[in-house]
């Protein structure tokens, strides 16, 4: 089975399938939806083969494929995955299936182009997670902006143009400096191989500059405070599917970048500047948590909650350095726990934020409003939906038994090993997260029927039940039994931690 070019298939099936959908829908005679769903399902099934064929015992890159691409610059088409990227790829293919389903009846305007954009983006995102050549990574990374730009701009809300241009320019500005860093390292290493970059010796000044260039790119993507302002705008204006992909996957690409690039390439600069990242993460957790509390727009609230949760992820990744300092580098188990917690938090946040955006989408499709004030007492007319929404809100606030708990708990435990105050501040999320999630639910779902519009609501359809039900199962499964996910990433994370703990200087 491993002889198959499996990663290539997972990248190119959706991209070519997307173009197929585009051409089929051109004359409006063919319904593009079943075709798109079939493509997304095939891709998802293919990506499951990555899981079944994955060797948990090694941290080496697996499913590698390498072809000559641009020999003049030593750029190769090199793909491969390890335990860090594999779960993210499956998350991507899984979410795309749901997104295709979610847009089934709702998107009336040019459905072919809509579905094609998502499929093409799926391929590009898988490419980002599996590229082992930095230039290939960059091509996928930037290429991804084009479909997202169109998705927000064409199918978004009233202020979509502002939001999408802001989104594009923010991320573009962040990534061009990363490009300079990549080229600089190529002139040192002679190739764009990411694994060569890992071994590249760099002095402190170079490391700091490269770290900052990466930080610009990844911090915008994650997004970290204070460069997070594009996210609420983009989320609010994007169509439901766009919000789901943004929250569930795009943000993870920033986190993934830290693990694949920043930490292993510039370990000493990361150690030197760990206070900066930890500070920014804690600000995101605490301050953005408060900001989320006062939002009156449901999508904005979830967007801010995403920023807070992603703050947890980056915190988990960088706890490594204070822990190493405390234990003198002897005990790395706390560091491994923090990083694993960050990874689990990424996957879990992918499910939960996606589910919450879909919930808002369900309401928005019926009422065309995202204002919390326009709702109230939804439980009376939509009991099944209310159950889902309450469940996901609970998961968002980190209820034990849901996936939201696992990652947060691991990171808080790890931060106790680092510094009591880190743990104290991080733990405020348990209160803040519960406050904004549950308060929103209280105002939207519970109480008496707020107005006539709400009285007329109909409960979720079979399609919506299927989407939300699948996500609920995923959230519960990951919450009750996270071991399979941990096993998959254990070797890679341990290897990464021990790699970072050795100075490059």
């Amino acid at each position, binding site marked *: 089975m491993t002889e198959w070019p499996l990663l290539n298939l997972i990248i190119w099936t959706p991209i070519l399938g997307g173009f197929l959908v585009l051409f089929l829908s*051109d004359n409006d005679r063919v319904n593009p939806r079943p075709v798109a769903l079939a493509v997304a399902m095939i891709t998802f099934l293919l990506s499951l083969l990555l899981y079944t064929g994955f060797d948990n015992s090694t941290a080496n890159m697996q499913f590698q494929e390498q072809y*000559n*691409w*641009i*020999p*003049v*610059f030593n750029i190769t088409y090199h793909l491969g995955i390890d335990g860090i990227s594999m779960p993210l790829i499956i998350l991507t293919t899984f979410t795309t299936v749901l997104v295709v389903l979610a847009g089934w009846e709702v998107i009336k305007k*040019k459905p072919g*182009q809509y579905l094609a954009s998502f499929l093409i983006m799926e391929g590009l995102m898988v490419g980002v997670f599996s590229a082992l050549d930095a*230039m290939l990574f*960059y*091509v996928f990374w*930037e*290429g991804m*902006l*084009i479909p997202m*730009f*169109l998705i927000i*701009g*064409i199918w978004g809300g009233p202020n*979509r*143009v502002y939001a*999408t*241009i802001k989104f*594009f*320019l923010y991320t*573009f*500005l962040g990534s*061009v*400096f990363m*490009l*300079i860093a990549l*080229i*600089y390292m*190529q*002139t040192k290493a002679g190739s764009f191989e990411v694994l060569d970059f890992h071994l590249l010796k760099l002095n402190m000044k170079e490391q700091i500059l490269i770290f900052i260039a990466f930080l610009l790119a990844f911090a915008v993507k994650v997004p970290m405070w204070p460069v997070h302002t594009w996210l609420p705008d983009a989320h609010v204006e994007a169509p439901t599917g766009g919000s789901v992909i943004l929250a569930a996957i795009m943000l993870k690409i920033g986190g993934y970048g830290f693990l694949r690039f920043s930490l292993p390439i510039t370990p000493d600069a990361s150690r030197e500047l760990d206070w900066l990242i930890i500070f920014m993460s804690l600000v995101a957790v605490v301050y953005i948590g408060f900001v989320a509390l006062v939002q009156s727009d449901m999508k904005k609230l979830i967007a801010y909650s995403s920023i807070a949760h992603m703050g947890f992820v980056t915190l988990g990744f960088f706890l490594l350095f204070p822990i190493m300092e405390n234990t003198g580098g002897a005990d790395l188990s706390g560091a491994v726990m923090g990083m694993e917690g960050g990874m689990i938090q990424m996957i879990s946040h992918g499910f939960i934020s996606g589910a919450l955006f879909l919930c808002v989408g369900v309401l928005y499709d019926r009422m065309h409003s995202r204002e919390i004030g326009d709702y109230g007492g939804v439980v009376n007319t939509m009991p099944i939906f209310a159950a889902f929404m309450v469940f996901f809100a609970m998961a968002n606030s980190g209820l034990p038994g849901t996936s939201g708990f696992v990652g947060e708990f691991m990171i808080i435990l790890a931060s106790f090993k680092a510094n009591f105050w880190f743990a104290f501040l991080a733990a405020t999320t348990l209160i803040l997260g519960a406050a904004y999630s549950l308060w929103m639910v209280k105002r939207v779902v519970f109480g008496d029927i707020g107005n006539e519009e709400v009285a007329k609501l109909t409960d979720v359809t079979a399609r919506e039940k299927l989407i939300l039900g699948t996500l609920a199962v995923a959230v519960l499964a990951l919450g009750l039994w996270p071991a399979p996910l941990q096993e998959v990433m254990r070797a890679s994370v341990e290897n990464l931690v021990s790699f970072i703990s050795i100075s490059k200087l």
Partner: protein
Amino acid sequence: MSIEASEFRLLIPEIFVLTMACLILIMDLFLDKRQRHITYYLSQATVLLTIVLTFVLKEPGVHLAFTGTYIADPMSVVLKIAIYIIVFLAFLYSRYYLELRGLFKGEYYVLGLFAMLGMMIMVSAHHMLTIYLGLELLSLCLYAMVAFNRDAYSCSEAAMKYFVLGALASGMLLYGMSIIYGATGSLDISVISLNTATVEHPRVLTFGLVFLVVGLAFKLGAVPFHMWVPDVYQGAPTPVTLFIGSAPKIAAFALVMRVLVESMGNLIDQWQDMLTIIAVLSLALGNVVAIAQTNLKRMLAYSTISHVGFLLLGIIAGTSNGYAASMFYSITYALMAAGAFGMIIVLSRAGFEADKIDDFKGLNERHPWYAFLMMILMFSMAGVPPTVGFYAKLNVLQAIIEQDMIWLAGITVFFSVIGAFYYIRMVKIMYFDDPVETQPIASRFDLDFGVTINSLAVLFLGLFPGWLLAVCSTTLP
């Protein structure tokens, strides 16, 4: 030094173009209006045959001819073929535009062929006088082409501006050359390059160099000598703008290579600094001012200025990688520019120029395929992968980072991000806005074919840039 008959062999493409241009000029006199397409097809056939001739007659290695005034090297072959292809596209796009406006005359194609000949000479010149001859042949044809629609006020105005400023620039260049001659005692590029090391008064040489750089910057349209670019681009008929904005950039690259790199290579420290200022200013002004434009041709004019800045960066690197990067940039930019102006022609009709940015509103509703093609071109100009514009920029950035000019790379990418704004605004206009124009877009098979091939080539080169990059880096020593 005597001239041997075999030397003529190198010049066969030039001689062929000259002969055909003259023949077409005469033959056109005997054609009536309905037979005018014969002129068009003959011109296109000439261009195609020239491609074949150049390709077949190319010889490996460097050959000098006519007492060292003419050079045939691998770089000139590649650049010439690129020029032919772009000229072919320019002719292809121009036909219906001219027909619809009663401008479909033989002179247009004859002037175009002579301009192409001028570019061929520029590319292959190895003597200051040959360079000047080629440049003037090109420029004079372009002046006439800008004024081609002589009844239009804007065309005459643009032609006048272009002519006056162009003549001034030629004067500067010529003056610079004369001083170089005074300092080094020769106009032959290889002799100049030898003598610059041992020149008696280096300051005189620098003085001449300044004028050369000014002249070149004028011709390239680099800041602060860019004033003519927006006016000429906007005023000229769109096919002429296409012509001016595409192929001559390739020839201008050759001009810079011959004049600065090959003859003044020893003075690199001096022209490097001058070009750095010019390039940074071009990037800054071009990208910032383009944002304020409402006319697409004018916007593309400012975008050209910024692209010229990029092109110069590769030269500034002063390494063969840098020159190859500039060469790649000039060729791919010409392709993108041809496509973008071609798209304006596609959308235009008699009495409607489609040159306002707002004329593209809602193009996705009216014609999704054209919108898609234009989107590829815009993202390519902005330098977003997977389009060729990205590799052009990557290439140049790599060349300057290799030379440890990281601050320059930082400035460059910063302005690229500013530049990205107005390109993606075009995408926004095409995809997010509602159409204002309701007239259906007339579809012409060869025009459709042209823009499709052109834009898809931009995408294709973006997916597989390896071979063209390899061609560029192997042709340069």
